[in-house]
Each structure stands twice: as C-alpha cells, then as structure tokens.
C-alpha cells in the first residue's frame, strides 16, 4: 500500500504548519520524518492518518483518495507518543481491541493476539494491566495493538521519545527487525537524527512546514541538499564569505567555484564537516587557516580538537583519528594550520530577482 501526499497545506490560525508538501511513499517502505519541533512532521503524520484534515491538497492510499475519509475508515495503525493504552484493560484486551470493535469472532481474536504477543516477545503478560508494565513493554503493546487489525499503513508518533536511552536503542533495533518481517508501509516521526538514520529506509528532513530533502540516509549524508540539512546533521563548521567570478573566498581560503561566474559578488556559506578538516604543523600549499588549539577532548573514539582562528574570530572543531593525534602531539596553545579537504558551498538566494 503506497502513500501519496499531494500538495498538502495546513494552517493553524496564523501559523502555517505545512506549506505545499508533496511526498511519495512506496509500498513496504519504512520512512522517517525528521526535523526540529515546529517543522510540521507531526502534523504531516496526523494528516496522513486522518486525525487532521489538510486545508488544501490530498492524501492517497494506493491511488484511492482518502482525504475526506475519517480516521476510523482508513484502517491505519497509529502508535501514539504516550502510548494511549486503555488503562483499565488488560494487555490482551488492549491488543484485541481493534478486532473486537470490528466484530471479529472470539477465536480469531485470541489467535491473533497470541500471535502478536509472540511477535513482541511479551507472552505471559496478557493479563497484566498497562500500569504494571515498563515503558518499553507498553510501547510494544501499543505497537501490537496498532498491528492487530492488519492495517494498510503503520504510523508512529515519536515512538521512543518517552524512553531511556538504553531502552530506546534496543527498541530501535527491534522496530527495524519487525519491519523486515512484516513489511507494512510505515512512517514514523522523530527529532533524533541518529534514530532516523539507523532505522529508516529513507528519511525526509523537514523544516518550517517544508521538505528540505528526501533520500536514503547515505544519500543525505553524502549530498546534503540545503544549508539547513547540513546544519541539522551536525558536526559541521560554518564559514561565511562570498563568491565572485568563479571563485569562492571564505576567510582566507580560496577555492574554485565554477558554478558562479558573475562579476557581481554574492554572499555564500560553506560547510565543512569536522572530519573533513585537516590539521597540519606547516603549510603544504593547500588553502589553510592559521589557528590556535584551545581544547582537546580525548574521551571519545575520535579526538575532538577545538581551534580558534584569531584573524577571523572563528572557532572550529576538527575530528582527528587517534593515530593522527598522536603523530601531531597536540596540546592547547599550539599554533597549527587547518585545511579543508572538502567544502560544500551554498550561495545565498538572491533577494530581488
């Protein structure tokens, strides 16, 4: 069951939550909606589910226009951020609820619930109440409940947001494995970049009601499409400068930028990832900046060195491998040269065209 989002706009009073958003989700894909709060990702999820209605645009489930259908008719499985388990029902009744209200016979309900209990590895707990379960267990019950009626689409709203880091990690793996087994078209919302990249087939990065980029985790990481995406992915250093006549000048680093040949100079921003910066004791001919080492953080698998380039008042973070760090024998106060191996330059959009 594929999902098509076509030019959806949604406003809440004066606030535009979604601005002309379009998206295609092929059947069986596990898609992540990633972005900061206010980006519209939760609104988009709720519109896909039918819990919200768009102002303009349409939603299709496999060519069928469901925009006007109530959530009850869409047969979606929705997993709420705080689980929304029925507090007075047992785990068994919770999971079987969707089947019960659709009038399925008791035998069928029983078989399906037991099957799902095995799947979520909570056999033996069918008589427990939600208040007797841990957070991770509740989340799994919420998932089983959503899957019980064999929905065409599975939607999860920040499913692991309320859990401890360790539990979150385990459940992430578990969700991925579950999806590999069941293959329901699934969309989940998260603000955690690591989570999205680890679990999803494809990721949609959103900001302020718009889609910034759609792609596999690898694609996005290698080829970020916009400054926002670059910045959002983190671990990045920012340079401000300008482009003119085929060259980009940022700080005192100059590179060829053939994409812009105009006489008129335009503002530009360059992003360099921490591991794309090199530290050298002496200049080696490549463009570089002079900087002083201010701090060295050795407590990680990679050494994070913070340097400060006085001339331009920029603080930079450089990731070094242990070998390289030992080679350089760096200490705070040392004077070094910082050179980018790779830079991504984004030219600022012209204001008046």
């Amino acid at each position, binding site marked *: 069951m594929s999902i098509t989002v076509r030019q959806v706009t949604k406003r809440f009073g004066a606030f535009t939550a979604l601005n002309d958003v379009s998206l295609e989700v092929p059947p069986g894909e596990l898609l992540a909606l990633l972005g900061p709060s206010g980006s519209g990702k939760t609104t988009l999820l709720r519109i896909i*589910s*039918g*819990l919200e209605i768009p102002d303009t645009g349409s939603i299709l489930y496999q060519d069928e226009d469901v925009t006007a259908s109530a*959530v*009850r008719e869409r*047969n*979606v*499985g*929705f997993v*709420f951020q*705080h689980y*929304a*388990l*029925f*507090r*007075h*029902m047992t785990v068994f009744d919770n999971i079987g*609820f*969707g089947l*019960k*209200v*659709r009038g399925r016979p008791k035998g069928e309900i029983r078989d399906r619930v037991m099957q799902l209990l095995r799947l979520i590895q909570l056999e033996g707990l069918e008589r427990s*109440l939600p*208040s*007797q*379960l*841990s*957070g*991770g*267990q509740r989340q799994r019950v919420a998932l089983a*409940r*959503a899957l019980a*009626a064999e929905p065409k689409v599975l939607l999860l709203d920040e499913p692991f947001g309320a859990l401890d880091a360790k*539990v979150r990690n*385990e*459940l992430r793996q578990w969700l991925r494995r579950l999806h590999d087994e069941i293959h329901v078209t699934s969309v989940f919302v998260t603000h955690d970049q690591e989570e999205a990249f680890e679990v999803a087939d494809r990721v949609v990065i959103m900001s302020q009601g718009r889609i910034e980029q759609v792609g596999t985790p690898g694609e996005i990481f290698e080829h970020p499409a916009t400054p926002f995406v670059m910045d959002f992915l983190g671990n990045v250093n920012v340079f401000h400068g300008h482009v003119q006549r085929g060259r980009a000048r940022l700080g005192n680093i100059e590179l060829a930028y053939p994409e812009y040949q105009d006489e008129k100079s335009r503002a530009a921003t360059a992003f360099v990832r921490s591991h794309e910066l090199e530290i050298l004791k002496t200049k080696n001919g490549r463009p570089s900046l002079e900087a002083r080492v201010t701090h060295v953080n050795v407590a990680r698998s990679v050494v994070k060195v913070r340097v400060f380039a006085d001339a331009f008042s920029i603080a930079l973070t450089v990731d070094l491998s242990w070998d390289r760090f030992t080679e350089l024998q760096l200490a705070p106060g040392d004077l070094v040269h910082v050179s980018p191996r790779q830079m991504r330059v984004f030219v600022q959009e012209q204001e008046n065209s």
Partner: protein
Amino acid sequence: MANYVRAHEDPPAVRLALILSAVAIMGFVVVVPLVNVFVGAFAEGFGTYWKNLADDPDTLHSIKLTLMVAPVAVFLNLIFGLAAAWAIARFRFPGRALLTAIIDMPFAVSPVVVGLFLLLIFGRQGFLGTWLREHDIQIVFAWPGLVIATCFVTFPVIARELIPLMEELGSEEEVAAVSLGARGWQLFRLVTLPNIKWGLLYGLILCNARAMGEFGAVFVISGHIAGKTDTMPLRVEKLFQEYNMVGAYAVSSVLAMLALVTLFLKSVLEWKTRQDLAASERLRAEGGAT
C-alpha cells in the same frame, strides 16, 4: 522518635490544643446534632418510633414519594451530566464557558426562587396553566412538579463531578480507540465509562442525597398537600408545625441514616480510588526491564 520539633512543625502543646479545638468544633457543630436526631427519634421508645414511621399513612406516603421522585431526578440528571461532560470536556466551541457557568447556576440560586419560577410556568395561573388544564396534565401540586424542581436544584452535581475528571483523563485513549475502528457507543462503553466509573458513582450518590433532601423548591411547588405531595423533608416540616416532635424526629432519622450511608459510600469510593492509584504507582516502580 526524637524529641525535638522539626522547623516546619508546631510544638506539641500547640498541636494538642489545636487538635482538641478541632474535635470540639466538630463535636458541637456536627456530631452532637447527629446524635440528637437519633436520641429524639427514640425518645419515646422503639415502639413509638416504629409506629411513627409505619403506621402513619401520610409518613409512609412521603417515604414512597421521596423514593420515587429522587431516583427519577437523578436519572435525568445523569443523562444530562454525561452529555454535558462529553461536550464540554472533549470539545472546544463558542459559548463553552457560558454553558459551564450556567451549569453552576443552581448552586447559588435560592431553591424558593426556583420553585416560584416553575410555578409561574406550570401553575394554574402560570404561562402554561390553561394549556395544562385543558389537557388534564397536573404538574404543580403533583409529582411531576416535584421531579422538575428537584432536577433543577441538583442537576449540576453529576456534571460538575464528571467535567474536571474527564478533562484530567484527556482524550488520548478515546482518539486511539477511534483510530482502531470504534464507533460512538462502543467508544463510550468500552473506553470512557470504565475510566470514569468511580467519579460517576460518586456523583450519583451525592446527587441522590441532595435530591432526597431537597426542601425549598419542592416546598413551593408541591402545595404541601399531606398524603399527596409531601416528600420526606416536607413531612418533617409538617410534623414540626403540628408540634409532633418525636414524629418529626423519626422521619428525620431515616434521612440522617441516608446521609450517613452517603458519607460511608463516599469514603469507600475515595479509598478505592486511592488504592487504585497506589497500586499502579507501586507496580510501575517495580516495572523493570524492557
């Protein structure tokens, strides 16, 4: 136990004095009157007590009338309470605050005023008086009038109990149920009702106590015709006017027992709710692994 007094606690002498004062206050204001009811009722022995209740046809009728009027009023108010709570606690709409304020209204309005206004509508010289007489429908000076008057005075009770309860519970479970395919009554029966059952029960008990004890509005609209339209509280007043103190006390004792049962049930319900909460807290703390 250490002998010193913690900084935020009062010294033992003060504590003792305050506790004794509180007990004294409760004693004089509440307990002594309570005891007085039963002492007065049995003042002439158990035989007279029983005679006052069972052998007096007017008293018997008043008991039957109260037992008929109160449950009807409670039932009507229950439907209203559920409807109002659902509308107010689950949705936002223009006029919501106004509706909530109107629901609070009977609380401050004198029941006599209520009875009078109902009389103005349904009374013989009232706005509907001629129409009612033509159709031979008796509302005032008959039990329908009693029901309406009782309804007015007690209708906020259940609603005021349910609205904050349902607001606190939130609509997440119900939205989840709808997403799973539940229809209107299924939703209400399977999800909402189990969650509000203690509050609802409490509202019912309180509403019943108030309904059975209502005096002012019923006084005006009943015409207080003994043997026909006297509810128990009105019967007490009638016996009082006739200087039959023991009789008045006898009927009062039944009403007082009702009040005590109400208090008892209320405590039980509160205890049950606290137990529920404590159990789930405890088990959650023991929750443990993934």
